C-alpha cells in the first residue's frame, strides 16, 4: 500500500504546487498575499463546468478556465491592488482588499450555484485505471501530472528564458530601477497576475475533475495549504513551491494512511513550525536571496 499512497501523495501534491505557484508568483513579484487566490481557483472550475455543460470539449474548457482565472485575477489587481499601490498602501491594505475580493467572488458563485455542490457531468473524462507493479493509477491522474509538468516547464521557461520574465524579475528586485531602465511595471503586473490566475484556474479544473466536487468555497482549504507550501518552500520561490507542494501532498497522504484519524492537519502544521525553526526563510528561501544578491 505504501507505493500506492506515495503515488496518491505526489498527485495531490502536484495540484497543491500548481495552486501555490500562482500564489507565490504574486507574492514574490509584488509582495502581496492575494487571499482571493482561492476564489480565482474556484472561478476557473466554474468556468470549465459551465463550458462542459454547454457541450464544449474538456480541453477547450481547460483553456477557458485558465483565461477566466487569469482575467479574474487581473481584474482584482486593477480594482483592488492598483489603486492602493498608487497611494503607497499596498501591504496590509492589499491583504484586506483581497479578503473583500474573495468574499465578493465567492458570494457571486454561491448565487450562481445556488450553494449546491456541482460536478462535471459523468463521462466528461474517461474513467480508466491501469495497474503497474501493483499500483493503481487512473488516466486522469496521468493527465494531471503531465499538465502540471507542462505548465511548470512553461512557467520556468517564461521566467528565466524570455525578456518578459527578465522584466518580471527586474520589477520584483527593484521596481524603481526597473522603471528607470524602461520596464513598464503595469505590463509586468498584468503578466504576473494573469499567469497566477491562469495557473489557479487550471488547478481548479483538475481538482474539480479529480474529486467530483465544484463548490463556491472549494478554494478555502487549498488557500490554507498554499500558505504552508509557499512558507515551507520559501516565499516567492518557484522551485520551493513545487518541492514543498509535493512534500505536503506526500506527508498529508501518509498521515491519513498510517496515523490515527484527524491528525493530518496537526502534523502538517507542527512540521511546518519545526522546519521554520530550523530554516526561517523556508526550504529554498535563503538560496533565492543569495542568487538574487549575486545577480545584483
Amino acid at each position, binding site marked *: *500500500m505504501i507505493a500506492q499512497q506515495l503515488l496518491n501523495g505526489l498527485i495531490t501534491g502536484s495540484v497543491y504546487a500548481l495552486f501555490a505557484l500562482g500564489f507565490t508568483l504574486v507574492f514574490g513579484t509584488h509582495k502581496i498575499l492575494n487571499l482571493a487566490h482561492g476564489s480565482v481557483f474556484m472561478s476557473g472550475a466554474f468556468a470549465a463546468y459551465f463550458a462542459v455543460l454547454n457541450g464544449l470539449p474538456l480541453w477547450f474548457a481547460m483553456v477557458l478556465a485558465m483565461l477566466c482565472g487569469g482575467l479574474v485575477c487581473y481584474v482584482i489587481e486593477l480594482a483592488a491592488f492598483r489603486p492602493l499601490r498608487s497611494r503607497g498602501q499596498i501591504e496590509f491594505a492589499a491583504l484586506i482588499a483581497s479578503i473583500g475580493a474573495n468574499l465578493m467572488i465567492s458570494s457571486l458563485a454561491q448565487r450562481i450555484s445556488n450553494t449546491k455542490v456541482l460536478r462535471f457531468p459523468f463521462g466528461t473524462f474517461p474513467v480508466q485505471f491501469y495497474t503497474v507493479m501493483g499500483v493503481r493509477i487512473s488516466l486522469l491522474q496521468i493527465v494531471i501530472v503531465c499538465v502540471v509538468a507542462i505548465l511548470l516547464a512553461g512557467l520556468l521557461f517564461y521566467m528565466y528564458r524570455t525578456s518578459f520574465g527578465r522584466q518580471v524579475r527586474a520589477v520584483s528586485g527593484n521596481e524603481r530601477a526597473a522603471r528607470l531602465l524602461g520596464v513598464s511595471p503595469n505590463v509586468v503586473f498584468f503578466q504576473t497576475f494573469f499567469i497566477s490566475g491562469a495557473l489557479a484556474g487550471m488547478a481548479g479544473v483538475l481538482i474539480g475533475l479529480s474529486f*467530483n466536487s465544484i463548490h463556491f468555497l472549494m478554494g478555502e*482549504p487549498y488557500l490554507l495549504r498554499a500558505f504552508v507550501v509557499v512558507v515551507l518552500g520559501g516565499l516567492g520561490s518557484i522551485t520551493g513551491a513545487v518541492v514543498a507542494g509535493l512534500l505536503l501532498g506526500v506527508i498529508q*497522504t501518509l498521515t491519513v494512511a498510517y496515523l490515527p484519524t484527524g491528525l493530518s492537519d496537526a502534523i502538517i502544521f507542527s512540521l511546518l513550525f519545526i522546519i521554520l525553526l530550523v530554516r526561517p526563510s523556508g526550504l529554498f528561501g535563503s538560496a533565492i536571496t543569495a542568487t538574487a544578491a549575486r545577480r545584483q
Partner: protein
Amino acid sequence: MKKAALFASVAGLLLSMSTARAAEYTVAIIQSMSGALAFVGVPLVDGMKLAAEEINAKQELGPGNTLKLIIEDDETNRAQAVSLVKRHAADPKVLAIMGPTTTAVAIAGAQAANEEKIVALVTTNSPEIAKTGPYGFRLSQPPEVLMEAIGKYSVEKLGIKECVLIGVLDNAAYVEQTQAYQDYVTSKGVKILAREGIKQGDTDFSALSAKVASMNPECVFMSAIAPTAANLIIQLKQAGLPPTTKLVGMSSMTSAALFEVGGAAVEGLYLVGDWVPGGGSEQGKAFAAAYKKRFGTEPDNWGPMGYGGLRVMSEAIRKSLPDATRDKIRENLAQIKDYPTLFGGGKFTYDPQRAPRYGTNILVVKNGQFVLAPN
C-alpha cells in the same frame, strides 16, 4: 345621503369587528438556505411553505385565522442564527421559531431562544439541544434510535461481521451517530476494522480510499452529508473497493444531492430514512404530488420533514388558542403525542426530553432512486 353614510359606518364597523376576530399567528423559520447545509434547509423550508398553505386553506387555526411564516437564512453560520433568533424573539408577534438547521448552529440558536423564552424547534437530532433548556425541541430523532434501526438491519439482514466506519468529525451530530452505530453493531459481535474521520467540506479522499479498499471490508458505514458521502463512495470504488462491500449510511444522505454527485456509484447504498420515497401512505402520496407540482421535484427526506415539523408546531399553536402565548405553545408542544405525520411509522410523539419519536424506514438506492429495503 344620511342613510348612505350610516350604512357605510355600520359596514365599516362590521368589517373592523371581523378583522379583529381574524388573527395571524407568526412563526419565524430560521434555516440554512445557503452554506454547506443548504441542501437540507431549502427543501425543509419548501415543505414548511406547503404545510402553511394547507393549514391556511383549510382554516385549521380557526375561521379567518392564518399562520404566517417569516423565512430567514442562517447561512449555516452561528452568529447569523443567534442574531436572527434574538431579532425575532424581540418581536411579540412571533410565537415560535423553527430552526436553526445543523448542530453547531442549532445549539447556539436554541441557547439564544432559551434566554429569550421562545420555542426553537431545531432540525438537528443532537442530544445537546435538550441541555440548552426547556424551550429547545428537536425535529429529528435521537442518534441511537436511527442507528439502532440501521445497525439492526446491517447485522440481521445484511449479515455483516466486520465493518469500517467513516464519519464526519467536525459536526457533533455525525460523531454521535457514528458512535451510536458502533455501539450497536459491536454489541452484536461485529468487528470494527477501522474508524476513520473526515471533515464535512473534504473532497480529497484518495489516501483514505486506498487505505479502506486495501482492507477488503465486508461493510463501510458512512456518517456524512449527502454530497460528501457520494464523493467518498466514488473515490472508494475508484480505489478498488470490492463491489460486494455493503455500503451503509444515514438519513442526511437521503437527498437528491446524493445522486447528483454520486450517480451510478451510490447504487446499493443502504440507509436509514424518515420518509418513504413516493409517499407510502395515501397522505404521503398526496403530499409528494403536491410537492412536485409546487416545486418541480420529487421530495427527498427534508421536504416531508419540514412539512411534518410545521404541522406539529401548528398543532401546538392550535391547542394554545384562543390566547396563544409562547409558554402555552411550549407546554403544548411538549405534550404532542401520536400526532399523524408523513414519515417514520406515521405517528409523532415528544418524549420527556423533548426528543421526537416517530419510527424509521430502511431504504436502499436502486436504479437511481430510494426504495424501501427488502425485509
